[in-house]
């Protein structure tokens, strides 16, 4: 992890609530993996509001650029949306434990909700490079929020979209979809991000089908570097519940370990 000042190459609104930022990452020497995040300072101005950095998972990882897809819904993301191409932005990272994907995997399932789609897009990008077949279920409140669908379609074998708007995103319907996929294909691993309810669903179904899984958690972070203990969550390891830090011990955890209730 390092403190970087990277050049913004592009920062534009892509839907009603979402923005897409591309930064020049050619000076970043560290290896960046899907599931990791950068803790971004929302503004270049000397101001104490917003005060803290904001953690953003990486949307796409390219040779010399990094992409972030973010929802504008508070003072921090509103400031982030003001960055213009050519300006420098302060990022701390790459931070956190990434997703892991075995070379023996042939078929994986991705289950994403809302901005969690951005987090799993980086994993889809990596899996596609490994020639792994990817089946993705993308869930959002409305069609307009399914903005990474085209990216996912580029990398995935099949992409299924569900929304509240269409009345297709309820847990029961998603359960049927996952069951169909698991029965039709020998899914080897499952990954999820963006919804506690869907994570719990996938946890049960993965366990029932003997599939390994991982989840990227989205807890509120203050420091993002393992110091403050704000972003903790509970995991159960060897029958013992432990309180661990999402920023340092995660944000990616084995799905079967996370205590969601």
């Amino acid at each position: 992890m390092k403190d970087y000042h990277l050049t913004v190459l592009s920062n534009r609104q892509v839907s009603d609530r979402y923005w897409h930022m591309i930064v020049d990452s050619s000076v970043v020497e560290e290896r960046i993996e899907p599931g990791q995040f950068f803790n971004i300072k929302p503004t270049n101005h000397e101001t104490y509001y917003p005060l803290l950095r904001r953690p953003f998972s990486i949307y796409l990882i390219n040779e010399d650029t990094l992409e972030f897809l973010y929802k504008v819904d508070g003072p921090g993301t509103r400031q982030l949306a003001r960055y213009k191409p050519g300006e420098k932005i302060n990022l701390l990272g790459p931070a956190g434990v990434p997703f892991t994907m075995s070379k023996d995997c042939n078929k994986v399932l991705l289950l994403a909700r809302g901005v969690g789609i951005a987090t799993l897009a980086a994993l889809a990008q990596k899996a596609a490079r490994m020639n792994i077949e990817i089946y993705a279920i993308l869930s959002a409140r409305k069609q307009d929020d399914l903005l990474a669908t085209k990216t996912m379609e580029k990398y995935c074998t099949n992409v299924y979209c569900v929304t509240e708007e269409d009345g297709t995103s309820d847990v029961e319907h998603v359960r049927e979809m996952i069951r169909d996929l698991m029965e039709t294909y020998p899914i080897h691993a499952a990954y999820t991000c963006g919804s506690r309810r869907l994570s719990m669903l996938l946890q049960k179904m993965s366990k029932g089908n003997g599939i390994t899984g991982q989840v990227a958690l989205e807890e509120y972070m203050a420091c993002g570097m393992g110091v403050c203990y704000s972003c903790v969550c509970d995991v159960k390891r060897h029958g013992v519940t432990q309180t661990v830090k999402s920023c340092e011990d995660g944000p990616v955890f084995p799905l079967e370990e996370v205590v969601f209730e």
Partner: protein
Amino acid sequence: MKKGLKMAVDIGGMTIANPVMPASGAFGEGMDKLIDFNLLGALVPKSITKYPQRGNRNPRACETQGGMINSIGIQSKGIDHYLQETIPYYEQYCAPLISSISAESIDEFVEMSNIIASVPSVVALELNISCPNLKNNGQAFGMSDAITYQLVDRVRETTDKPILVKLTPNVTDIQSIALAAERAGADSLVVANTPLAMAIDIHSRRPKIGNVMGGLSGPAIKPIIVRQIYQVHEVSRLPIIGCGGVMTANDAIEMMLAGASAVQVGTANFVSPTAMIDIIQGIQTYMEEHQLYHIDKLIGGVMVRNQWEKDYI
């Protein structure tokens, strides 16, 4: 550093190379990738408790205008882990190690102080008698001068090492608490901890902190802390470590002018992990610009009305 510039300060018998150190709870091993710990005045890891404890429920932090509220509840791996893992880790650095202790009772403070003070590499103890995030609705030992006296007096019997007492700002008269700690044998006062605060999400109507209330930190609280440093400096001979809202060198200098000998930096580390190093360099630049060759010249150097009127006339 420019030759002849003296940044070292004395904190109750302990000389530190410069007056900047982290605030307990806002500093840890994860930061070693980002800054050189050897450059800091001292190292203050998170408060240690006797037994492992899981801390408070989520959400544990929220941002406010110019600050943040936290209620971590001192998540801790307990004293055994501290002795076996934490202290040996910090021993690799030349900056002195100050151990911050949090306990449930006076007896427990005494017991833990006795154990930790016996470790040669621990240079001083900081008694956290002021954490607002534990039980009893934000109450802390440091809210009572009688309990503060009793607690510090008992710990004093266990060690000759410097004892730093971290006061709470959540009191009506901080001077009486400071004097109680001084009479009981404290070597230095940390002024202060976080003021008890609360924030509500107006849409869900829920408190933004799982524990309902928490401690406010960050630039929003600095004027309160500067005032309390000034008040404590007026009545106490003890060196003061200012703590609360230091973001820049100017903030640190302001606290020193109010009477602090050193400062602790907390929330600023989250915004900029190099904040403490930047503050040390900024103080140095200020000293050069104002031709101050000894940092002691800053301490308590505020000129209140009668002083500047005299100078002017």
